[in-house]
């Protein structure tokens, strides 16, 4: 059994008289250190899946299991930054540690993260003083702060400009390589998924319609024919 295993997941939302099936027959497994991207059109159920894994809502049926039998420490980046407006950037980054008490806040680590994300100058600013991209970076720092065993990212780069997006993509990859985290990454950018992940699943109307394993070495080049072939394959599966 793999470390993380999802089997026959189904999620229904009540929608007026009827129900909306947001996920159906969704099975997926991942080992520690895996980087799985979930791609699909808007409304295909990507966020729904991450929310189930994070325990923010419960599935209609199906199971989410871990081979060691306990829920891992999770770090999550939402589609929007969701920073606490009453905390400074630094306090937001150490937010996952808050319940451990004031003395145990890992300020050193927070600073290192802020430095890496290029917003160290803003550590004492409140979120209202940040641009959208900076806020999203702070949110990324928060997700990484408490040594998460499983990182869930819901289009973390979606709201960013081309340049910041590329830079942060590199940062996430670096982090993945150096700290060997397990990452579930949601995006609707096919290139991004191919550039970053080891495996990709394509969602359509809540169903997995295509699974791709990518064995290319990092850093991956867009000009590599193998890269282009995978992108092509994915685009076809989405366009069906």
């Amino acid at each position, binding site marked *: 059994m793999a470390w993380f295993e999802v089997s026959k997941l189904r999620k229904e939302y009540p929608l007026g008289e009827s129900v909306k099936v947001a996920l159906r027959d969704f099975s997926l497994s991942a080992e520690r250190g895996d980087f799985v991207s979930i791609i699909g059109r808007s409304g295909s159920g990507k966020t729904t899946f991450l929310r189930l894994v994070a325990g923010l809502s419960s599935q209609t049926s199906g199971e989410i299991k871990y081979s060691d039998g306990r829920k891992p420490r*999770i770090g*999550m980046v939402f589609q929007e930054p*969701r920073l606490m407006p*009453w905390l400074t950037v630094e306090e937001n980054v150490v937010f996952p540690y808050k*319940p451990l008490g004031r003395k145990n806040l890992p300020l050193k680590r927070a600073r290192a993260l802020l430095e890496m994300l290029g917003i160290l100058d803003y550590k004492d*600013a*409140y*979120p209202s003083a940040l641009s959208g991209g900076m806020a999203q970076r702070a949110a990324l720092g928060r997700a990484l702060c*408490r040594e998460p065993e499983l990182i869930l990212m819901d289009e973390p780069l979606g709201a960013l400009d081309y340049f910041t997006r590329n830079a942060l993509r590199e940062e996430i990859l670096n982090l993945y390589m150096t700290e060997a985290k397990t990452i579930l990454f949601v995006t609707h950018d096919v290139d991004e998924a191919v550039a970053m992940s080891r495996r990709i699943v394509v969602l359509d109307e809540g169903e997995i319609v295509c699974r791709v394993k990518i064995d290319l070495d990092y850093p991956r080049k867009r000009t590599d024919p193998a890269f282009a072939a995978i992108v092509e394959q994915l685009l076809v599966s989405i366009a069906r």
Partner: protein
Amino acid sequence: MILLGKYAGKATRAAAFLWNIGAAIPIIVLILWQWGSKSGWWSAFLLPGPTVVMKSFISLLATGELAENICASILRILKGFSFSALVALATAFACGIYRPMLRALSPTFEFIRHIPPMATIPMLILWFGIGEASKLVIIVMATFFPIFLNTVQGVIQCDKRLVEVARAFGYSRAQELRYVIFPSALPYVLTGMRLGLGYSWRSLIAAELVAASSGLGYMILDAEQLSRPDVIMVGILTIGCLGSLMDVSLSCLTTRFTSYGKKDGVV
């Protein structure tokens, strides 16, 4: 930037001018008051002049009578306010988090809320006499609803998506409450407390006018019976000064805890 600075300068100058006029009002009133009583525009019995009031203020200070009455009133406020605030906060958080409780309690609260505390005084005297209990009830009645209603509002407006962040990071329910819902509601809580403190001060004084044997309200009533308008004036001025002092200190606290995000500009 320079342009903005210029307009900002104009705006602050206008504001400063207005502030000066505003600050001058009490002084102008004081001058008119002094002048009027000196030139005998009205009988000294209807309104004694500032110097007379000042003199009796000093003598009341000297005898310790003023301090004693101030202490009596403030002590009641402290007791009543802290009790009421605790109960109101606990009920409000419970109601805000568990909405059915709010729905269950709201008819009763809606009814009580519309009763001015003063209207219950005759019954309170009947039940508790003119001892401390009746005044505490008055303060609780005046303070409970502003704190309760504002806090409920604060808990309800708390962004559910922020609570989800805490949940995703493994917070327990109690930790969500402490680290997300409470700080998010804090500005509302403080506003409620500020309103409540104002209301309770006013109703306490009113209650002391009818049912007390100490306190600033009692001092005024006593002075009325002794035909001492100067003492009444001292009482009125003291009430106003202490009331605004309390309000200013709470509003400083409010600014201290809620100024995040309102500062303009970057960093």
